[in-house]
């Protein structure tokens, strides 16, 4: 029997060591470097305590990155979940060519975000202004990605276009777990479609809603590819996300230690955010 136990340990230990070496160890290193003044390439560095952390809180670029990332993540998460739920309801109805449409709506999920970003870059830069020119729509004539106040909306649009695919499939799976006799009972009672949605559908897919909101928010907070493909963080620093700031400052700005401190703070924010979301959404699930 102990031979079996040894086998179980042998099955897991190498994987765990590798996981520790390539995931946990660099994370610990990140925390360690955040207490130093290392620029990433010089042979020596010194301990500076919490100096980096103090400076992060005074850094306008960091604040700016958090503001962009938050407003981007909140709007994208809400739009993606609302649209996905609507599309899933549509795909779950008795429609023509259902499998074809399901395949179309899922398609963006298999495409590289970076390349999708490049394609949309062209749409915002050339197609929309071209069409707006012909139709005389003034405010769409210029590239919104070049506008400091609107560029972030462009990134939200691409993110929504892409991630609706995955979330729709999740909601669709959720909808298919609802037994159809519940709807039959409701329609006998003369419930409207609207009422049916809020009293049967939504409460029953609430767990899917919770998990979708939490995962989407966490993924959206880490936005990187979209920004690199579409604006590179610009114009100015208008669309610089936290991941982009850490990447650029850490690798090319000589701020290895400083951006590590930023990343540690980011970790805390993600954990707190996830915790609050779970608490809040699970409480709602209970109430329904």
């Amino acid at each position, binding site marked *: 029997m102990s*031979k079996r136990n040894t086998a179980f340990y042998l099955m897991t230990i190498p994987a765990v060591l590798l996981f520790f070496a390539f995931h946990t160890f660099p994370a610990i290193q990140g925390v360690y470097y955040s207490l130093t003044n290392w620029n990433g390439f010089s042979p020596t560095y010194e301990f500076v305590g919490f100096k980096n952390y103090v400076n992060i809180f005074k850094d306008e670029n960091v604040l700016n990155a958090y503001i962009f990332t938050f407003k981007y993540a909140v709007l994208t998460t809400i739009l993606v979940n609302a649209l996905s739920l609507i599309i899933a309801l549509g795909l779950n109805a008795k429609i023509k060519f259902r499998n074809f449409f399901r395949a*179309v709506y899922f398609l963006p999920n298999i495409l590289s975000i*970076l390349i999708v970003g490049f394609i949309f870059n062209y749409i915002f830069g050339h197609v929309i202004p071209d069409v707006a020119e012909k139709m005389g729509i003034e405010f769409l004539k210029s590239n919104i990605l070049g506008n400091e106040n609107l560029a972030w909306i462009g990134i939200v649009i691409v993110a929504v276009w892409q991630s609706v695919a995955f979330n729709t499939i999740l909601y669709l799976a959720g909808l298919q777990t609802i037994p159809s006799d519940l709807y039959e009972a409701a329609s006998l009672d003369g419930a409207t479609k609207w009422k049916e949605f809020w009293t049967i559908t939504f409460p029953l897919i609430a767990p899917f809603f919770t998990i979708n909101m939490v995962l989407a928010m966490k993924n959206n907070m880490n936005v990187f590819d979209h920004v690199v493909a579409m604006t590179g963080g610009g114009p100015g620093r208008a669309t610089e996300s936290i991941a982009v700031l850490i990447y650029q400052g850490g690798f090319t700005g000589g701020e290895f230690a400083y951006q590590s401190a930023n990343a540690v703070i980011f970790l805390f924010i993600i954990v707190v955010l996830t915790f609050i979301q779970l608490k809040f959404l699970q409480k709602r699930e209970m109430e329904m």
Partner: protein
Amino acid sequence: MKNKTNWAVTVPIALGSLLILFPLYLAIAVALKSPEELANSILGLPKEFHLENFMRAIEMTNFFQAFQNSAFVTVIAVVFTILTNSMVAYAIARNMDKTFFKSLYYYLISAMFIPFPLIMLPIVKETSALGMNNLFGLSVLYIVYGLSLNIFIYVGYIRSIPRELEEAAIVDGASAWGVFWKVIFPLLSPMNATVGILTCLWAWNDFMLPLIILNDPEMATLPLKQYIFQGQFSTDYNTAFASYLLALSPLVIVYLFAQKWVISGVTKGAIK
């Protein structure tokens, strides 16, 4: 009464699907046009197919090499993720009553909350110090980083497999390894498909890890290649779009033939 087509829903769904298809139509149209044609009409159908755009894109970006790089990383990542992650999950799932395995489970799952930017800077130093700043190293990272989610997917499934199936093999004298490979692994096929599809989509389309890990442009994977060539494409949109389409096409072609399978695979992973 319930079998009538609901046109009030079909129409908006059809219109919505045009929003999904439009960027792809545009990409194909631009890739097939000549620069003059594009200047005259951005949205129109191409009058003739300028396939030389694709030839130029292949030559310019060295497409076949990038394709090979992406294929190498994706195949290694998928095969070894399935073989190793399922085994780790099996050992965990069958020993959840032991502290070691239980803590292991929570350790791997909670790692999902660590945002990648925290690891990003140190992992670059680490991989280059170990000589892993290459395609092999990249594949290893996908296999290792996938553990968190995959363990979650596999463990749930393995716990639903009745132990009686294993006990029969144990009575016949099979070792834990034998039980796993001969009894459990074949039963995991649906989850292996799910994990394989998710890993494939991730490794093929990922941009961030290749960007930070690979420093030799010869090793660039397809998305990274598009990024590197962004400056050289500059205003040559026809070549650029031909290149994008070439990079997107392998997975799209697979998807056209296996979409049902891909969607159900992803769904099964998601609702676990």
